[in-house]
């Protein structure tokens, strides 16, 4: 007995998710079925493997040409292959898919034949397939149909095949399109339950939860939801490390104040692909990790690829980190030109003061306020007569803040308030408190980290 090895067929079963046809037939011309010539048929029996090859190559052509003749040819060969391999689930599924495509191309709706073929499949074969009613969905999706109508059709399809994860995921995407984010979450959750290993479904669930977060006034206050979102997105990134998943993982870690993890993911995404989002997230994560040299590289990348205006204040922060105050003041001056905003005006004034650079303050009351909160900030920081100034306590803004985002800003501008009153110690203390707040990606939060060491 000599030693040889046999491979155990013992593996994780990954059900093949159906991918719906994405292209409609480019031509209305539908060829008649072209079966193999008689001569061919009269030859010796073709082995099942050969039938399969021919069927697969016909279906490969269908993916590009959508010719009915090729679909019928594929069906012919699959049926022959099935004669020898009736129990082979993969051939059964492939045969059904070909019938499915035929109904889609030829009729645009599911025929009785397709339904019968589907009904004859085992539970396992069905699990990886779209039901016949999915033909109706695809047909509708290729016509001008509202998302709401598509959702209604898809819900019927799901009723026919509720264990198909792909259908639930598609439903989630459609709900996302109609901005019914809670239902997007619910559908994505079911897709993930049905196929826990699929990174696409993991990401869709995390992303849908993030949509809920974005509905809130201050999304930094939604810690539990943020944790749930990042749990799914980071798992998706681990399974399928593409830029989108990794970058979003970094972003969520940043929102949660987990800066080392955020930096790691953001840099990885940035290394994979440099686009508007990956660059800005890498820039922010670098600033939060006080890796200013890397932040500068990212900022320069952004300027080269996108524009300069968006990162002027980031450049100012980087300059301050290098004690280049005049340069920082210049960046802030350019920034205020493009951004007529009360809060930006206040930060510009402070940097200029610290830089001892010339700056003509804008009248805060000539800048449009965008919210009652900005009104409060303006009120707190307006140039007061001495006696009026006394009327406000230093915790005026802190008391006005209604959420974590406003509180982050409140602490920062209170620090400025103290600095203006020549109380550097209190200013520094308030900058430190700013960094303990939740709005980690706010400019004020980032400035607090830089200025704390410069006062």
């Amino acid at each position: 007995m000599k030693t040889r090895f046999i491979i155990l067929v013992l593996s994780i079963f990954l059900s093949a998710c159906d991918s719906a046809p994405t292209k409609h037939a480019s031509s209305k011309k539908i060829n008649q079925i072209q079966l193999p010539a008689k001569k061919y048929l009269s030859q010796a029996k073709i082995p099942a493997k050969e039938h399969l090859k021919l069927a697969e190559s016909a279906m490969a052509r269908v993916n590009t040409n959508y010719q009915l003749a090729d679909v019928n040819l594929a069906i012919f060969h699959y049926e022959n292959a099935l004669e020898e391999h009736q129990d082979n689930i993969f051939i059964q599924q492939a045969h059904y898919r070909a019938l499915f495509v035929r109904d889609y191309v030829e009729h645009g709706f599911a025929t009785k034949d397709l339904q019968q073929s589907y009904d004859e499949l085992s539970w396992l074969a069905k699990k990886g397939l779209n039901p016949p009613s999915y033909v109706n969905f695809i047909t509708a999706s290729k016509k001008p149909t509202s998302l709401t109508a598509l959702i209604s059709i898809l819900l019927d399809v799901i009723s026919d095949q509720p264990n198909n994860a792909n259908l639930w995921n598609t439903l989630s995407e459609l709900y996302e399109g109609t901005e019914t984010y809670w239902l997007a979450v619910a559908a994505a959750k079911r897709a993930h339950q049905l196929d826990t290993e699929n990174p696409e479904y993991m990401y869709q669930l995390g992303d849908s939860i993030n949509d809920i977060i974005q509905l809130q006034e201050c999304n930094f206050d939604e810690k539990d939801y943020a944790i749930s979102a990042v749990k799914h997105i980071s798992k998706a990134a681990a399974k399928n490390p593409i830029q989108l998943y990794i970058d979003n993982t970094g972003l969520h870690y940043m929102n949660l104040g987990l800066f080392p993890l955020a930096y790691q993911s953001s840099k990885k995404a940035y290394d994979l692909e440099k686009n508007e989002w990956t660059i800005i997230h890498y820039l922010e994560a670098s600033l939060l990790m006080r890796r200013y040299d890397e932040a500068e590289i990212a900022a320069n990348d952004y300027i080269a690829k996108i524009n300069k205006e968006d990162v002027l204040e980031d450049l100012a922060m980087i300059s301050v980190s290098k004690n280049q105050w005049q340069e920082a003041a210049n960046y802030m001056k350019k920034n205020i030109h493009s951004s007529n905003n009360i809060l930006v005006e206040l930060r510009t004034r402070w940097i200029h003061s610290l830089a001892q650079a010339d700056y003509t303050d804008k009248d805060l009351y000539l800048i449009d306020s965008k919210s009652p909160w900005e009104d409060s900030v303006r009120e707190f920081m307006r140039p007061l007569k001495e006696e009026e100034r006394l009327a406000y306590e230093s915790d005026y803004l802190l008391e006005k803040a209604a959420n974590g985002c406003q509180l982050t800003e409140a602490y920062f501008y209170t620090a400025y308030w103290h600095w203006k009153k020549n109380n550097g110690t209190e200013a520094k203390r308030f900058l430190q408190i700013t960094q303990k707040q939740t709005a980690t990606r706010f400019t004020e939060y980032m400035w607090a980290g830089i200025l704390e060491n410069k006062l």
Partner: protein
Amino acid sequence: MKFICHTLLLLLFSIPVFATERMAPSLVEQAKISSSSAGAETLFSVHHSILDSRGHWSKTSYYSLKINDINAARDYGRISIPYNNYYSNAKLEFANVFSKDGELKPVSEDAIQVRSVNTTQDFYEDRNEIIFSLPQVEPGSIIEFQITKTTKVKAIDTVLTSSISPYWFQPLVAKDGFRADAVKNFSYQLTVPPTIEMHTKVYGNLPDKPKLEKTDSQYSHTWKWENVPELTIEASMPPSYEFIPSITSSTDTQWEKIDTWTWNKIEPKLVKTSAIDGVISSLNIAGNATDQDKIKAVFAYLQTNIRYVFAHLGRGGYEPHFPDEIINDKYGDCKDQTVLALALFKELGIDAYPLLVETLRQGKSDTSLVELIFDHMMVWIPATKTHEEIWMDTTGDYGLFPGASAYIQGQPAMIVNGKGGKLIQVNMDSQENLAHLDLNYTVNEDLNIIVDVEMLYKGAIEQNMRNWWQHDNNRDTTLKQTFTMIFEDKGQYKLSSEVLNAENIYEPFKIVGQFKFDALKNQDTPINLGVSVIQLIRVFGINSGLQIPKTRKNRYVTALPIKTKLTAKFEAPKNYRSALIQSAENFSRPYFEVQQKIESKGNIFFVEINTHQPPLNLSSVEYENYYNDMLKLGDTGAWVVNMQLDSDKLATNNITQLKNTEGENTLIYQVSLAKKHINSGDFQKALPVALRAVEIDNKNGEAWFVLGMAQGFSGSIEESQQAFENAKKLGFVP
């Protein structure tokens, strides 16, 4: 093979009446002959056998070989001439080498030895060999030697035989076979007295008519052949007479004399003695015992009490001992054990006979001329109303009753009865050579896949396996390797194994074991389990190590039909569903067949794979097809069964359990039921249930979330938004 009883065949009987002369041209002359054969070539193979009126032989043979390459030089470095010194004398007349430089050198006296041959354990016999080594054996040289063997004692008086082939069979230096180089000139002269009639048969497609010379005192027949091609000796060849040219002569064509000769050696020893009575008494045979009970009792007695020892120094090897000697010594060879068994059977009233057998080791002879072809003896018991015929052999190591080797199937044999005997071919109809692998797949509560294995054997395969276990010093390692042919060992399982019935002569040898695979990650992990014919072929080593077709020179012949069988049971655990996802194909060829099928019963699948290889006799073209087809066996595919947690069934069970344990009007039941409806796509059905859940506890975030789902998927989007907001406010996190 320890059980095989050694005999002496083709003995050359004569007395040294006269000094023999050189029978071939001088080496100087032979050196002028061109030799184009690769390796080596026999330039002259010359033989003269002289029978005198007493029936004694003098047989002289001369061989000269041209050495053409280094491998041949290595192989011919030592020459051995075996003989039995009880029956014959042997003399090396001369041996020389003619070097490539033209120098003639004789063998040195200090490089010739006559010595006893070391045979296997427990063999004591009169086998000698003359061995010698010639100097300067190298490419370009010619070696020659001449030997004479003469009869000392005749083994059998009544039959005279002689056989010769042109070849000198030289063992390869690696001791893994023989070489038989091409022969340029062959000559054989048979000289007999006119009073003795010899029948002669020539095998092979060579001239069979001899030149006849007659005088008053002797008749001489001479055959001369030229350019006899090289013979390649391979495994699984046809009987030698079908492919080795040779000339055989015998005084007889009928086998009665062999029956008489054998019977006369045995029958007088089958007498009742007190020792025989003692043995019978010790068998404790019940009064109502059947014949079969008695036969089994005798078999068991011999298996456990009489060790196999061939003790024949000074006895010639054909004369069995008396039963009392055997009982007393507690050992005996095949003849001895047969005699003792027959003596016991005689006392027990069982009709039984000695059976002479030519074993496969000896080859398979043509029986048209009578020769002493048999090298083994056992017991043949004719069929009666209560049992089939029994082929009993007690010489094996704890062989399974009745002990006959499956490899004697189809071999020449003779039932000896003192009445002329009966020449037969062994036909043990009931012998099936089967290896059966049984796999039982289950999943335990800790999510380990468990595969219980049984390997069961019958016939020749059972004997091989039992023999392997009894004689392999490294058997535990080999056993483990056997299991790794079922599932490759990547460290993913723990294996336990055990051998059963290795010493039990009534139950087939059996191997059992269990694979315990690492636990699955979780219940949701689907499982694919498979079996294929390749597992079967590899675990039993069927057709492993087949010779590659391009090197095959001879017909490929196997004597035994071989069957293998794989049965597998796939049993899904509780709450799992199983489905067949891939099936395998049948495979049918004239020389190998695979039949496969699957059946299911509920959630259990049963696979059965059967292979059958009939006895083969293939031409080189057929062998190539056979070889290539064996390589394609993997293409027959595998049976793959998928098992997955049946989430619908599990959910239904859980819901029912909740209803029973928690009650219908509870939050947990209503929420679970609503979720089940949603998961099943029954959104409308879910709605009232979810509403009921919120009614029961409107401070429960999950209840509101489920209500939001039921509402939203039913089309009530605005209501659902409110429900979701409520869920969030109550701390629900999706």
